[in-house]
């Protein structure tokens, strides 16, 4: 089973929920941090990293001996990532989406591919939990291809928890697509509600069952609860604000490790999710 933890709004507690959920689970579990722009889960899980892999995406390289400056490569490219300038062809690797169009169209077979570094993937483990995260290279714009590479590590035989990035655009979709369940973490404030609506729209588009965690449930107002009820999104857990928890979070501590009450709460959360996923309803997506 794959559970993706997402939020719309940043800073609502995705990483807290995802890491505690994974660490309280009794069976085999793997944790994937797909927030490759700002990965944080390792600061809480503190895995031993076993290997580091540099991830590259293919970008064109032009052999000017063969090139006739016909311009077909720049004509097909939708991303302005290759241009004929005077007597040469100039690729702009940072703009390239790695579609391979220029290479396929080149009548002289003058284009081959080299790599642009997207970032790294680190793999490790802690107490039997497999841990994988991606770190986008600073200055690299495109997160989705690195997220897809992180996701290639998913093992179908174990529980997979994915920590998704904030927002609702392509990196979030890349982190939720193909999940069995999306756990949306929000806070009961106007910003939390507005961004929750967007995130729920994305989940519905993908046709994945979902549920809600309301974090800091005693701040703000009641609109998030009313909205969840109207949209028939089950509220699976509420966590009231406690300064003690905020302070523990700031030190990189996970409450499930020291507090049996929290451990029980997160095990209960998992059973609720499992019950929803195992209910035999046709998936719409």
């Amino acid at each position, binding site marked *: 089973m794959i559970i993706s933890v997402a939020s*719309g*709004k*940043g*800073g*609502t507690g995705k*990483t807290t929920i995802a890491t505690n959920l994974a660490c309280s689970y009794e069976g085999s579990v793997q944790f994937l941090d797909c927030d490759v*722009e*700002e990965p*944080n889960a390792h*600061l*809480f899980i503190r895995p031993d990293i076993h290997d580091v892999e540099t991830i590259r995406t293919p970008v064109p390289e032009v052999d000017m001996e063969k090139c006739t400056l016909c311009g077909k490569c720049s004509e*097909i490219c*939708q*991303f302005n990532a290759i241009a004929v300038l005077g007597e040469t062809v100039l690729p702009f690797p940072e703009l390239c*989406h*790695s*579609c*391979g*169009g220029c290479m*396929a*169209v080149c009548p002289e077979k003058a284009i081959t591919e080299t790599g642009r570094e997207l970032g790294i993937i680190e793999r490790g483990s802690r107490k039997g939990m497999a841990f994988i995260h991606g770190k*986008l290279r*600073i*200055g*690299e*714009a*495109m*997160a989705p291809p690195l997220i897809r590479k992180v996701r290639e590590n998913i093992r179908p035989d174990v529980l997979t928890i994915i920590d998704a*990035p*904030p*927002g*609702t*655009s*392509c*990196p979030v*979709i890349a982190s939720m*697509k193909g999940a069995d369940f999306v756990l949306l973490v929000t806070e009961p*404030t*106007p*910003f939390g509600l*507005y*961004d929750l609506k*967007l995130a729920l*729209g*994305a989940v519905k*588009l*993908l046709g994945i069952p979902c549920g809600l965690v309301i974090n800091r449930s005693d*701040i*703000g*107002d009641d609109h998030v609860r009313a909205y969840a009820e109207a949209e028939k999104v089950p509220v699976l857990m509420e966590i009231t604000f406690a*300064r003690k928890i*905020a*302070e523990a*979070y*700031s*030190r*990189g501590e996970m409450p499930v490790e020291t507090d049996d009450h929290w451990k029980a709460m997160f095990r209960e959360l998992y059973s609720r999710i499992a019950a929803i996923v195992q209910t035999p309803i046709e998936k719409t997506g």
Partner: protein
Amino acid sequence: MQELVVISGKGGTGKTTLLAAFASLAHNKVLCDADVDAADLHLILDPKIRQRHDFQSGHTAEINPEACTRCGLCRELCRFDAIGENFQVDPISCEGCGVCYYFCPENAIAFPLNTCGEWYVSDTRFGPMAHARLGIAEENSGKLVTLIRQQGKERAQRDGLDLLLTDGPPGVGCPVIASLGGATAVLIVAEPSVSGLHDMERVAQLAAGFNIPAMVCINKFDINPEQGKAIEAYAEKKNIAVMGRIPFDPMFTKAMVMGKTLFEYNGRSEGSDAVRSIWEKVAQRLDDMERKNSQ
């Protein structure tokens, strides 16, 4: 004209709350919400939309089943697994590269332009505002960020205003990169936690890579003063100006629930005093930069 972009790396550190508070302090400015993915500034500033435009960018392939002979070339060439066995394009996976459209021997593939959101120029009680709404699951947020910053600048020029206050997106990827190019300075809003320090370092590196002067302030400082000091120490080492500390204050949420800025809600609390002092320092720094540039 100057532009201050408020960024954070990590989400939820208080960028938008702070920017809205600055909006009620700064003079002669245009506001810009560049967090097009999950734009929240309008929830406080309640903009009256004066101009509304479609945002069109990128294309998505569409296969006409009547003309398609199922030769399979498109599936073979597509690197994004966007074409299913039934020869239907999954619009979410389609990258908009046009390779299938270009090569289809039957000309059975259309490649229409996407409308992926809307952008607006509005009036607020604190001045004009450029903002946008990106459609759910849409791409090209970077292009939309560039477009609304441009619109904000044009509006400022038209009205003779000299400052653009831009609420940036979280992260370090495409929308953040698009929000930085050509900015006068960035203010990083950090939170004092292990994640806050980690994420602040990454976004500070990004700003340094663009040669944009950075400032930092720490929100909810007293939640973990040690981490807060670690962030300040990092900033000093990297030549990032430290603008101040904001205490944890439940008033921030209360103001948001009422749709008000901090100062409209309660101008006399420890939190609002800290924000006012930070704005004064930031404004002073922007002035100094302008003076230096004009010399």
